[in-house]
């Protein structure tokens, strides 16, 4: 047991740094740093660079397009991309439905869907939550009735992130209304251009259009787009949720976030000294670094367990709880640090607008980001649901 990088690891680290320096799209530099809203084109331009290099899916098995990196190399990759503030790609294809397809899909399904996820040509969204089924996801009511070789789907999904841009969606639907809740659900892949699908925006507190309502009226889905067996969709759903939770810790990004807060606190004045000299503010930063370090090493221990053959289990709920809390505390500290200039609402520049926004650059999106980040303890199974999972699956209560 040790923390050292081998000469090969150090060479890899250098290779990654050089690659990012030479290939990260110039117009994206600093964009995430300012907390700017990112467009689909932004995500795609970085996605395409990585896809071309073959580095788009480090977590995938090599046979499906993974990189074959060691755990240490994956760690280096996430550290280096966060350090360079590379934008974080959308998880729906790469981290969610991709692993479900290569784990549960037929050879035909793998051949049809995995290449588009890797290339970025196909964008995915997630049809899980419904207006009446949030934390109690298994109570979902969107139903799919088999009619010949097609399912006819009717119902409503909500909180569907990026549905306005998605080409395909993966949906949990009820195929057996008479079975026990979890045993009547199937996992369907749905072409978002199918007639009968309506996407309506939901605007969140920071002014963003990230999430949507998705209405499905007599949407016909070929039966070959069902992943795994009929009424076994909950198995895929649980698998996906456990995968989602590990990535959700966001350690490397939060490390960078702390450095950003420190920079702001060295710039902002409190009396005749920097804010960072304020003992109370400084203590909050130290406590955040402490908790982030504890999270980082918990994740490293968990990854070591995974590479020893243990898949991401229910203990990944721990990573979700602490990771999301830390992300929120970061945005809270940033908002506190910018002081008065947290208040002006900057909507971004209009066409040909050369007016300078109010206040320092780092303040523009402090409040919207704070508001937006309240989502992290709610999505992916709220932190209360994660505690239920720990209580039942880990502690046997």
């Amino acid at each position, binding site marked *: 047991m*040790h923390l050292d990088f081998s000469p090969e690891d150090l060479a890899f680290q250098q290779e990654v740094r050089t690659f990012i320096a030479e290939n990260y799209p110039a117009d994206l530099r600093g964009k995430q740093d300012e907390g700017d809203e990112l467009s689909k084109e932004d995500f795609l331009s970085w996605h395409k660079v990585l896809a071309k290099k073959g580095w788009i899916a480090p977590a995938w098995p090599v046979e499906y397009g993974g990189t074959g990196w060691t755990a240490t190399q994956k760690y280096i990759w996430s550290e280096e991309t966060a350090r360079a503030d590379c934008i974080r790609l959308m998880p729906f294809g790469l981290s969610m439905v991709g692993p479900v397809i290569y784990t549960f899909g037929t050879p035909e399904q793998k051949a049809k869907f995995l290449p588009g996820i890797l290339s970025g040509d196909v964008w995915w969204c997630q049809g899980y939550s419904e207006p009446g089924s949030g934390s109690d996801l298994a109570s979902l009511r969107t139903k799919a009735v088999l009619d010949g070789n097609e399912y006819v789907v009717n119902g409503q999904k909500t909180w569907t992130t990026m549905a306005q841009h998605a080409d395909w969606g993966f949906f949990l639907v009820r195929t057996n209304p008479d079975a026990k809740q979890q045993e009547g659900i199937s996992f369907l892949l749905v072409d978002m251009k199918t007639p009968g699908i309506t996407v309506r925006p939901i605007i969140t507190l920071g002014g963003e259009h990230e999430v949507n309502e998705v209405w499905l009226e007599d949407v016909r889905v070929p039966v070959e787009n069902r992943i795994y067996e009929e009424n076994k969709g909950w198995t895929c759903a649980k698998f996906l949720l456990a995968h989602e939770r590990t990535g959700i810790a966001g350690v490397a990004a939060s490390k960078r976030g702390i450095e950003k807060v420190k920079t702001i606190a060295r710039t902002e004045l409190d009396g005749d000294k920097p804010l960072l000299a304020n003992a109370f503010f400084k203590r909050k930063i130290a406590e955040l670094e402490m908790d982030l370090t504890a999270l980082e090493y*918990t994740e490293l221990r968990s990854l*070591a367990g995974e590479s*020893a053959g243990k898949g991401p289990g229910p203990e990944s709920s721990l990573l979700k709880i602490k990771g999301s809390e830390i992300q929120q505390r970061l945005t809270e500290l940033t908002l506190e640090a910018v002081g008065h200039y947290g208040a002006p609402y900057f909507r971004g520049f209009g066409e040909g607008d050369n007016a300078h926004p109010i206040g320092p650059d780092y303040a523009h999106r402090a409040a919207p980001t704070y508001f937006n980040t309240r989502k992290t303890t709610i999505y992916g199974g709220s932190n209360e649901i994660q505690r239920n999972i720990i*209580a039942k699956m880990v502690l046997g209560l």
Partner: protein
Amino acid sequence: MDFSYTETQDMLRDTLARFLADTYDFETRKKMLTRPEGRDPGIWRALATELGILGAPFAEEHGGLGGGALENMIMMEELGKVIAIEPYLQTVVIGGGALKHSGGARADAVIPEIIAGNAVIAFAYAEPQGRYDLANVRTSAKADGAGYVLSGHKAVVYAAPWATHLLVTARTGGSSREREGVELFLIDATLPGIVRRDYPTVDGFQASEVYFENVAIPGDALVPGGIGLIELLVDEATVAVCGEACGVSRKLLDGTLDYTKQRKQFGQPIGKFQVLQHRMADMFVEVEQIASMALMGTLKLDTPAAERKAAVSLAKAKVSRSLNFVGQNAIQTHGGIGITVELAIGHYFKRGTMIENQFGSADFHLGRFEDLTLAD
């Protein structure tokens, strides 16, 4: 980077765990505390001779098993699981650490005695006015011919009543809080002029106030390294108690889980209540983070001093906070029975509570971390 234990390390853990399961159940431990020495010296002897594992962190040339800080962490975690009253921290981690780092004839002579179970070392570093500042030392070592004369008062010296040797910090020069002039001495615990006032501690140990009344010590008692070495030893000891905290906190959680699965109120086991389930889920989260931080601190021990200190302080601050949470909630969840001496849980709580402030509270360590890394 590698997070797996070697086979030898797994074996060390299993060997010790099996031995302690047989010899250190709660009732037996309770009886040990009532003996005149406040412990069963046969256990220490068995660890040395029967199991041969007191040499875990020592080099093979000294008769050790060739391990290091990780082996100490493993030992401390297992000792923590039974809240063992054994001077492993004082003798092997701190005393042994001082000998390993300084080397030479003294190490050649004393390390084999530690491994054989003959030498017990107590670490006399704290002083009544000093809190956790290692340079806040008034005990003096005045040069006198070829040797020194020790004078002063050392506070709460754990394991001193059992010790064959004392590892003492004392000032050979400089003013009372200066780093310069603080030195380390390894001396015979029975030298004339050493006066002890012995007492039990709340967590089951034996400790002493130690008074040095013009104690003449030989010149070769000085262990070279000064304050830098003392800081290193205390950092090593700090992560060792983080390892112990890992064992203690796991048992606090396990005990609470067992209890809430049995204890019935309102017609069902109280572990069925969501408010308690979530609290225990939070305890689990804290226990895992204690384990992570103990490991992080241990793995960072061989980095440069500034990085090492910052890492150790982050580890101890988190461990103290988490241990506080786990311990207090273990007692609360047990209800009234938790505050009696009848159940083991309260005794784990007592040791855990002492670990919180041992070698520095959470606030002390956050302050040290800030001084090292958060300059404005």
